[in-house]
């Protein structure tokens, strides 16, 4: 999915198009702002669009390279798509629901789903129970640390 087809960097080209559109949007949106608020966005928007255009050309002519960073994002894209989507859906649901449902309940539910997502082989009942207890204890401990020690007002929502 890296988009390298022959010498062309298709994914890089798609990314460049996104940044090109963003740069153009920022540039034209700045025309509606006051002169002082517009000067910097106009400059950066034009720069972003210009750089993205160059990158798009480089991607199409096969002169695009990768990045040095060896983090998670680069490469290895095809593996575990279902798990990846589960992770994304869980994080999105967690972020949207915790103010409504409550931090503790949402976090516990999300962590249990993520725990199941992180299991790659069958585990014994004892080990599974240990994992469940571990996740519950972790959520409870961090909840108490945040709410009682650091005095961060965690949302209690409809449940807890």
């Amino acid at each position, binding site marked *: 999915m890296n988009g390298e087809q022959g010498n062309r960097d298709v994914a890089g080209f798609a990314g460049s198009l996104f940044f090109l559109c963003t740069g153009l949007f920022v540039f034209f949106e700045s025309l509606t702002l006051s002169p002082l608020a517009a000067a910097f966005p106009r400059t950066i928007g034009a720069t972003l669009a210009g750089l993205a255009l160059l990158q798009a050309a480089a991607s199409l002519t096969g002169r695009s390279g990768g990045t040095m960073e060896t983090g998670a994002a680069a490469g290895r894209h095809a593996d575990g798509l279902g798990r990846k989507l589960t992770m994304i859906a869980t994080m*999105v649901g967690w972020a949207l629901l915790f103010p409504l449902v409550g931090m503790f309940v949402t976090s516990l539910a999300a962590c249990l789903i993520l725990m199941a997502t992180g299991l790659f082989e069958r585990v014994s009942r004892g080990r599974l129970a240990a994992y469940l207890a571990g996740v519950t204890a972790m959520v409870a401990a961090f909840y108490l640390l945040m709410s009682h020690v650091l005095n961060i007002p965690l949302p209690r929502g409809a449940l807890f």
Partner: protein
Amino acid sequence: MAVDIGFILSQALSPFNLLLAVAGVVLGTVIGALPGLSATMAIAVLVPFTFAMEPASGLIMLGAIYTGAIYGGAYAAILVNTPGTPSAIATTFDGYPMAKRGDGDLAITLATLASVFGGLVGAVLLIAFAPLLADIALAFQSSEYFWLAILGLTLIASLSSGNVLKGLIGGAFGLTLSMIGVAVIGGDLRFTFGVPALLGGIDIVAALIGLYCIPVLIDMVARPDRHLEPSPLQRGFRIFEALGICAANLFNLVRSSLIGTLVGILPGAGGSIASLVSYSEARRASRHPERFGTGEAGGVLATESANNATVGGGFIPTLVLGIPGTPPDAVILGALLVQGIRTGPELFSQQSGIVYVFMAGLVIATLLMLPLGLVIGRYAYRFIANTPKAMLVPAVAFMTVVGSFAIHSNPHDVAVMVAIGIFGWLIGLAGYGPSPIVLGLVLGQIAEQGFMRAYMIGGARGNFSGQLLLDRPISLGIFALILITLCVPLVKRLRAGRAAAGGKGGEARP
């Protein structure tokens, strides 16, 4: 100026103050290692407790927390590929590959030694030359800050080896993200799309957590292999091996610590630029620059010595000029004022006793980082390497959510963190790394303020470009560095291309 060293040491080394320093370093290290929990938060939470203490004791504890938190950022960078603080961004470049191949224990020990070395250099320069070095902060004006921010972005772009252009695009996009909300100058609402949550802009820490943690989490659940390779042998702290590497990199350590101190002096620039400049210099000067980014020890030494040197450097404008260099400096400045200490040029003559006790406390806290950091680091590495993914994934995910919520106790920060994280993962597929975007976001306000002030001053003079570029030698110097940073990879690429073409041509000849 007579300073009673005996009195200062007796104050700083009292059992109670030592205990506070130990507690501060441990607390700071643990908090700094947790994404989202920053040094600023730790200091801000504990400041009220220090009001009941003697001024020196309270300040020693705050300094120890700050030092520990900057160091603690390296743990998450090395073990989870997530910089605990922006100043640890460059530590991920080589620290995480080292941990991935089973050298996490060595990387932690190197980070500890480098942090202690850098912290000591920064603290010693603070003690010896604070008033003199404060002049450097005053020498920098608006246009220099703009160019400094651009230098930071071009440096990180040039570090994205193989594709400077993608790095520059990422940096420009980060600057764009920094413009969301109320304009720094002008006060207009920009790019909020009518969403009230975006009025305050995008929080840097939430973006940092999202851009680094979410792709790591997505990658973690995709594959059954271990997150980190555990050390194949029981090799202890690997302290002698690390000391040998430090000895071989002594010049790198000294240079990076000096860069860290000098950049730390500049308010707002701080550890992120310092560690990137040091990393870039270390790579440029290395005999094997191609190893950087693949787990090169010199990279970890450069970034960690530089970012801890910024602690001492950052206190120079804070104490001498009353201008806090970083948010933690601002909180400590507030604590100083509450304790009745007036910062400014007279501080070192009128209240030298307490200031030098504070500085001595900083040195002691830095030294304490060595044993405490080695012990904490060893167990942290073992713990992360041996924790099954079924436990590690929910733990990291929970910390990202709670950490980003804790910044302002605002659910919108969590939504922003998740959205930016997913975006970061998607653009990662297209070969765009997170570091330029984060740095653009970090430096956006500095860049815009510098740019706009120069724009207004230049406009008033009817000479914008002259004001921005040509009026001042420091601006010209930084601009020249930017050009060099951008051109060197290009020239190298051209030469390599020519050499390859020459080789092929040679082969083709009969």
